[in-house]
């Protein structure tokens, strides 16, 4: 079922609880890759879609995908390492399901970033570029960053129906101080920001932006004709105001409201109960399922955010990976098992549907955490070395790329920069050197050859 600003999934009886608008219209939909080669030239991309699973806050590499069982006790931590199906790859005991599926993905052990704060590091990781004005922690502005990788791909694909870059979160991601300003269009402007969707643990989907459209009410939107008339009037009204709040995002939102296909995509109750259960009834799990549905209809870039906030245990936080305190309790209780379940389910699902070959899944955060356990028995920020997980979309599975040193502090070989991450995503998404040069993005970037 489908409603303005909110797309509640059906309840147990299969009946929508609060939908008040059902759309019957159909607009052209995403999935326009059939003509991709003719329009863009060259061969189609290996990754028709990209899913960035963003572990905001900085997941501990030693406690997840790069354990160091032979390290000193003050580094190693309390979790044991377990074998995977990939030679040379150990993962933490917190990830038994992912250990069994290592033939579906590869792991980079030598990611690096340039700043240690959540916002600048996150912006650098999401754009592949360093800020020209210092970044968020040094008074930098949004145009100091290049566009995010999602914005670049969306612009390149030029989807005219569904947004080309959809970010699933409760709102702009960031920490308690402010948002990551590099998560959107950057110097290209707000028109290239991601389209934000929110999905809760029951699979109810909402468009936070549309909640700002005062004047829309169930009574006034009883039928489609009325809806379109009301929307048109509302748009003219907003456009006439001195402050222009109507932008491309609203256009896209209205496009979604009038698209019967969007109605179907956002309705997670159309999935089998078995599938929904496999992802788990958490906001992260159901968001990843929604992400897969978006990929299925051809949305080029979907970012699923673990958390809108990154400060665990603070009021209003929702458990990002910023485990300065109680790292080992939090990871064992929530983060480890949730990631293990949801990422495993996502990989299984894409694989079983034959979508993994054409969908690049990248799972990472802005940095890792201190290999040396801090003085309160936890781990702090560490951007000198961390991990990323790559699957599908042209990536060779079952590989370990790069290596960290004995304590997990620095790359022992083959450091992977944010620019290399961004360039590799773009390359797999069909943006080779010429296309990047044309858009003037990551022109000097190098792909991570070992992954391809």
């Amino acid at each position, binding site marked *: 079922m489908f409603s303005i600003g909110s797309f509640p999934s059906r309840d*147990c009886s299969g009946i929508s609880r609060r939908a008040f608008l059902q759309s019957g219209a159909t607009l052209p939909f995403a999935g326009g890759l059939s003509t991709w080669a003719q329009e863009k030239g060259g061969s189609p991309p290996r990754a028709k879609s990209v899913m960035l699973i963003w572990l905001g806050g900085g997941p501990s590499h030693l406690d997840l995908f790069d354990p160091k069982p032979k390290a000193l006790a003050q580094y190693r931590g309390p979790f044991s390492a377990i074998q995977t199906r990939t030679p040379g790859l150990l993962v933490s005991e917190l990830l038994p399901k992912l250990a069994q599926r290592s033939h579906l993905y590869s792991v980079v052990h030598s990611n690096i970033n340039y700043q240690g704060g959540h916002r600048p590091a996150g912006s650098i990781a999401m754009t592949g570029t360093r800020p020209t004005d210092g970044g968020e922690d040094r008074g930098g502005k949004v145009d100091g960053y290049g566009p995010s990788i999602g914005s670049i791909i969306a612009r390149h694909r030029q989807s005219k129906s569904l947004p080309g870059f959809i970010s699933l979160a409760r709102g702009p991601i960031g920490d308690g101080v402010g948002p990551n300003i590099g998560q959107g269009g950057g110097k290209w402007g707000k028109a290239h920001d991601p389209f934000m969707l929110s999905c809760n643990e029951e699979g109810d989907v909402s468009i936070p932006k549309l909640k700002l459209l005062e004047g829309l009410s169930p009574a006034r939107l009883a039928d489609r004709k009325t809806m379109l008339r009301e929307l048109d009037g509302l748009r003219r009204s907003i456009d006439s105001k001195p402050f222009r709040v109507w932008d491309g995002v609203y256009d896209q939102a209205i496009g979604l409201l009038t698209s019967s296909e969007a109605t179907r995509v956002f309705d997670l109750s159309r999935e089998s109960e078995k599938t929904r*259960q496999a992802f788990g009834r958490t906001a992260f799990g159901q968001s990843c399922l929604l992400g897969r549905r978006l990929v299925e209809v051809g949305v080029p870039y979907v970012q699923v955010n673990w958390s809108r906030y990154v400060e665990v245990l603070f009021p*209003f936080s*929702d458990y990002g990976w910023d485990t*300065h305190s*109680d790292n080992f309790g939090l990871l064992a209780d929530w983060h480890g098992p949730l990631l293990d379940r949801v990422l495993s389910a996502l990989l299984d699902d894409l694989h079983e549907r034959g979508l993994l070959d054409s969908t690049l899944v990248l799972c990472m955060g802005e940095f890792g955490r201190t290999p040396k356990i801090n003085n309160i028995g936890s781990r702090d920020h560490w951007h000198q070395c961390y991990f990323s997980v790559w699957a599908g979309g042209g990536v060779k599975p079952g590989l370990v790329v790069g290596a960290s040193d004995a304590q997990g502090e620095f790359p022992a070989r083959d450091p992977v920069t944010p620019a290399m991450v961004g360039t590799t995503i773009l390359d797999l998404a069909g943006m080779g050197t010429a296309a990047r040069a044309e858009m003037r993005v990551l022109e000097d970037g190098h792909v991570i050859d070992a992954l391809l």
Partner: protein
Amino acid sequence: MWNQFPAFAFPLRLCDSASIKTGRTARLGYCPLVILFALLGLYSTDAAADDVRQLTTNGRLKFAPVFVGDGKELAWCEHDQPTRVSIIRLNLETGKSTTMFPNASGHFFDPAFSADGRYWCFGRSGGPRQLSLVIVDTKDEKEVAFEPAGGLRATIRTPRFTPDGKRVIFTINAPGGQQIASVNIKGQDYRPLTQSAGINGWPDISRDGKQIVFSSSRAGSLNLFLMNIDGSEPRQLTNHRIRDVRPAFSPDGRRIAFTSARDGNREIYLINTDGSGLKRLTNHKERDDYPVWHPDGKQIAWIAERNGRFDVHLMPVGD
């Protein structure tokens, strides 16, 4: 012994609020399925399974259940809002559940209750510390907070009252590492109980007040240890490379329930306090965690993940 917990045995997708449903009652509508699956060998017909009760049905993330007083109430932590963890109390006789501090904005973790019911405590987020220990005197209607040293990052988890109600022990993340310590009922007279390498946590106290069981990685991986109530004479109880955590003393002090992932998946286990008699109580492909003994010593409540949902369950435990 109950060892199988099929998904269809309980109406897991009921959308009403927390309620008490016995396994027998909840399965009435599923008799044909039960028979079919029993014939297929997919369903345990063990008599004990009939006594397993699912106490909640909303499926939200839950943790840290504890019984209150004589066991007529159960409390736990629940993600009742997307960005909030609350403490929920459920009356097991009436089925009525209550959210503590329903209008608060912060998180509330890890409730514990004194044996006489006068005091209760919990971890509270907000203010200058990430999780402070709050001790509430319900008789005098006063509360005190213990703010651990260590600035913004210090955290208190897993508080437990001593049986005499005079002190609270807990896990503390503070300078010196993750250790176990205690304060008196006024939140004063801080006493470290462990000062070891590695991670120490999840303490529980025997009902006679003489011993503490806890988990520690001081020897490598997380295993169970016992020590005297003053922290002296620590001795290792389990020895496995995969973690054993969240130990809970049985009321008679003879056994300890705990969570282990030693078979690759979290299950509830029992072990005698002398290290003998290791026994697995649950066996499900999803997570079973947070065991807590009912005061009668005959049942254990725990959080079971079933079909991706988290609910409180209660199972009988034999001798």
